[in-house]
């Protein structure tokens, strides 16, 4: 046992310490200390992550797996959910990316946010995000991942609306939160459905939420169950990772501070959906139809948002749509069963897209918060570090040979074509998106750094301070060399990252699902790996095909770059002509295919109408009933009060008056003279005695009188 094996929990715990420190001691220790502590804690997480990685490297490749049961949580019978953390090849890569890029962006933020009055709060949120994201990545079960999942969603909301003084930012945060909620709902339903079915319906199954148990039992599920669960999980992933139809929140999310866009909305949080699907790889391999859906949606998103990015003028909007597009690539990758390629692209994308956003932030910072590319240009000499790092990221995302994006994107495209889940149509869409990516990124570069200067008077672009440029340089280095961990065999590389992650995505596949993968070869058994059949064709023709496709993607990347360069430096009139000749098409793309408007018309308006109606219902019917009953009560109590005053009180008072009157009269009798009382008593005694003595004769006399009267009456 190694010390780190039982202390995986420290990785997410570190930023959590930061959150508590900033919240409770932030104003005591001051801004500078907050910034240092925030960065330092994430750096400790990074060091621990490296330690975990090295530890896993030292293990037998088939058993690279560390479980850390930190705290018990829910124990019901044999069902257990713990605060348990798992490091395996996938989560080790993710945790390195999250803490590494996270650390660099924390450092960058100390410069970018330096003048902001809410500096301390910003770092509290950022640390909270790091905590939630690391929790999500290291979680060993779905429920714990869901905590992280919701945590990052919360941080995303808080940070998009960080400058909530502007109502538009607050609205953007709300939009992100609500759209994510739709996906999260799907995630929960999927989780409960799978949990219920595995425990209650599968013979030999058990109630479990552990990823490895789910994946290894997935082949026992009927295919329709696996497909349903996978589609529901993909709904969650599509919300978090901004895929069609739930991508609309991500471009608006750029309302947040730029480091947030880089960390949350480009490098880490939005890739959580891809990671989740890779975590459920065993389940997805048993659901071929769901994988097809994932791949198709991914490819469609990649192309769709790339076309939108072409026409945007806001530098962050271009990058936002580019992010959506690249996420589409990742889904294309995991959708065709190339989970490693998806995660690989996730990693390189975290480097170069994080860098693009940070560099764009540096530009915006230097241009005094100007985001419109039409007011930039010729910034190359003014912002030298930003420019050179931007160039590295540009070549990486465009897929220029030798840069990180080239390797990962090409791997996805090749798997989209060759994998048993793949299809040449998917490849073609991805290919077209690659060309567009190269084109719009070139357009962005040219409009920002080259050509004539178009800034307003009074703007003096300046390079950012070192705590911003150093992270840029670090990320630029990663963007350039990050791809060399996954050089394909064709280029005499070892493709280390793919082999590294292979054990974590290799699962047993049911026969039913295996029939769905048309190309499963006899003798291959039911032991499908991701990218199942790659090595089963003839190696020669396979390699020739791979080489051909690689050549094609290089060609389309370079072609896109050259066309973009030529069009935006020499022939500025062509884009204008295109826009003028096809105004409908141009406007449609400029307005993002009116998707927001369609959603507004189809969903939001109806929801608002319903809200209005329920508001009116509340106002009139419910409030009316309440007010009516209040009015009635008041009237009734008025009447009862009147009765009380006049009858009840009257009776009581009358009784009191009578008592008092009687008392006053009889009180006179009490003179206080003892002798008078005695006289009365003696008189009474005397009357009594006289009465007793005389009674027989009185009685006699009475009887006589009566008899005589009766006699008289009878006689007459």
């Amino acid at each position, binding site marked *: 046992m190694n010390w780190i094996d039982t202390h995986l929990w420290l990785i997410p715990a570190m930023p959590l310490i930061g959150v508590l420190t900033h919240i409770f001691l932030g104003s005591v220790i001051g801004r500078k200390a907050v910034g240092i502590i925030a960065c330092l804690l994430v750096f400790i997480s990074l060091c621990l992550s490296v330690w975990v990685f090295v530890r896993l490297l030292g293990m037998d490749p088939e058993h690279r797996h560390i479980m850390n049961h930190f705290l018990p949580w829910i124990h019901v019978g044999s069902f257990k959910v713990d605060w348990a953390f798992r490091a395996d090849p996938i989560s080790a890569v993710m945790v390195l990316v999250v803490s590494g890029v996270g650390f660099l962006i924390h450092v960058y933020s100390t410069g970018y946010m330096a003048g902001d009055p809410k500096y301390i709060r910003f770092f509290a949120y950022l640390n909270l995000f790091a905590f939630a994201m690391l929790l999500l990545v290291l979680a060993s079960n779905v429920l714990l991942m869901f905590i992280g999942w919701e945590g990052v969603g919360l941080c995303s909301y808080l940070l998009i609306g960080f400058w909530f003084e502007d109502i538009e930012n607050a609205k953007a945060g709300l939009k992100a939160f609500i759209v994510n909620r739709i996906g999260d709902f799907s995630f929960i339903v999927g989780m409960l459905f799978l949990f219920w079915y595995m425990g209650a319906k599968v013979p030999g199954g058990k109630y479990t939420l552990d990823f490895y148990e789910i994946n290894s039992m997935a082949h026992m599920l009927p295919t329709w169950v696996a497909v349903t669960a996978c589609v529901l999980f993909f709904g969650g992933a599509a919300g978090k990772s901004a895929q069609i139809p739930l991508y609309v929140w991500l471009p608006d999310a750029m309302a947040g501070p730029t480091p947030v866009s880089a960390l949350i909305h480009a490098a880490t949080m939005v890739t959580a959906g891809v990671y989740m699907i890779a975590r459920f790889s065993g389940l997805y391999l048993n659901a071929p139809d769901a994988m097809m859906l994932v791949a198709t949606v991914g490819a469609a998103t990649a192309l769709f948002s790339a076309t939108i990015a072409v026409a945007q003028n806001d530098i962050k909007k271009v990058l936002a749509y580019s992010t959506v597009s690249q996420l589409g690539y990742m889904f294309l990758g995991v959708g065709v069963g190339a989970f490693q390629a998806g995660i690989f692209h996730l990693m390189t994308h975290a480097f170069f897209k994080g860098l693009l956003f940070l560099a764009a932030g540096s530009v915006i910072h230097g241009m005094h918060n100007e985001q419109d590319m039409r007011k930039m240009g010729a910034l190359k000499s003014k912002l030298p570090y930003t420019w050179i790092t931007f160039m590295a990221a540009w070549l990486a995302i465009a897929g220029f040979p030798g840069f990180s994006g080239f390797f990962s994107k090409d791997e996805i495209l090749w798997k989209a074509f060759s994998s048993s889940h793949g299809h040449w149509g998917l490849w073609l869409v991805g290919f077209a998106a690659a060309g567009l990516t190269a084109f719009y990124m070139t357009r962005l570069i040219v409009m920002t750094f080259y050509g004539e200067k178009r800034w307003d008077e009074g703007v003096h672009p300046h390079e950012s301070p070192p705590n911003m440029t150093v992270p840029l340089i670090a990320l630029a280095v990663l963007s350039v060399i990050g791809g060399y961990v996954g050089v394909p065999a064709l280029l005499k590389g070892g493709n280390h990252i793919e082999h590294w992650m292979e054990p974590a995505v290799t699962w047993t596949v049911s026969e039913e699902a295996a029939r769905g993968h048309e190309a499963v070869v006899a003798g291959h058994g039911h032991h499908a790996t991701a990218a199942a059949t790659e090595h089963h064709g003839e190696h020669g023709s396979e390699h020739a095909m791979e080489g051909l496709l690689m050549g094609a993607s290089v060609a389309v990347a370079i072609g896109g770059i050259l066309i973009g360069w030529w069009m935006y430096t020499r022939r500025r009139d062509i884009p204008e002509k295109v826009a003028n000749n096809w105004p409908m098409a141009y406007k449609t793309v400029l307005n993002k295919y009116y998707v927001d408007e369609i959603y507004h018309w189809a969903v939001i308006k109806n929801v608002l109408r319903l809200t209005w109606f329920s508001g009116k219902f509340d106002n009139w019917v419910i409030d009316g009933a309440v007010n009516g009953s209040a009015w009635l009560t008041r009237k009734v109590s008025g009447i009862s009060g009147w009765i009380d005053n006049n009858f009840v009180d009257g009776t009581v008072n009358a009784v009191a008056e009578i008592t008092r009157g009687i008392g006053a009269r*009889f*009180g*006179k*009798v*009490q*003179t*206080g*003279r*003892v*002798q008078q009382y*005695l*006289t009365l008593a*003696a008189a009474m005694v005397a009357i009594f005695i006289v009465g007793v003595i005389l009674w027989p004769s009185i009685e006699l006399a009475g009887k006589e009188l009566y008899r005589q009267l009766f006699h008289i009456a009878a006689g007459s």
Partner: protein
Amino acid sequence: MIPIGHILAVGAAMFCIGLFALLSRRNAVAVFMGIELMLNAANLNFVAFSHYHSQSIDGIVAAVFVIMLAAAEFAVALALILSLYQTFRSVHLDDADEMKG
């Protein structure tokens, strides 16, 4: 021998004189003298009936009890009268009419 009727007549007379004194005298001491007279009228009856109608000494014992009681009562009464005097500077019962309604 004196007939019982005479003795009872003397007793009734004494009772009436006592009652008259009780009801008519203003001085508290005189009122008590009236009470004593009434008690002794009753005693006289006890003794008379004992002597004429009973062969036992029951009536005489009762008379002795009454005399003792009267002595004890008079001690209490004198204390009351002194207290009355201290409060009202008078032993006239008419002056002590604090309890009138």
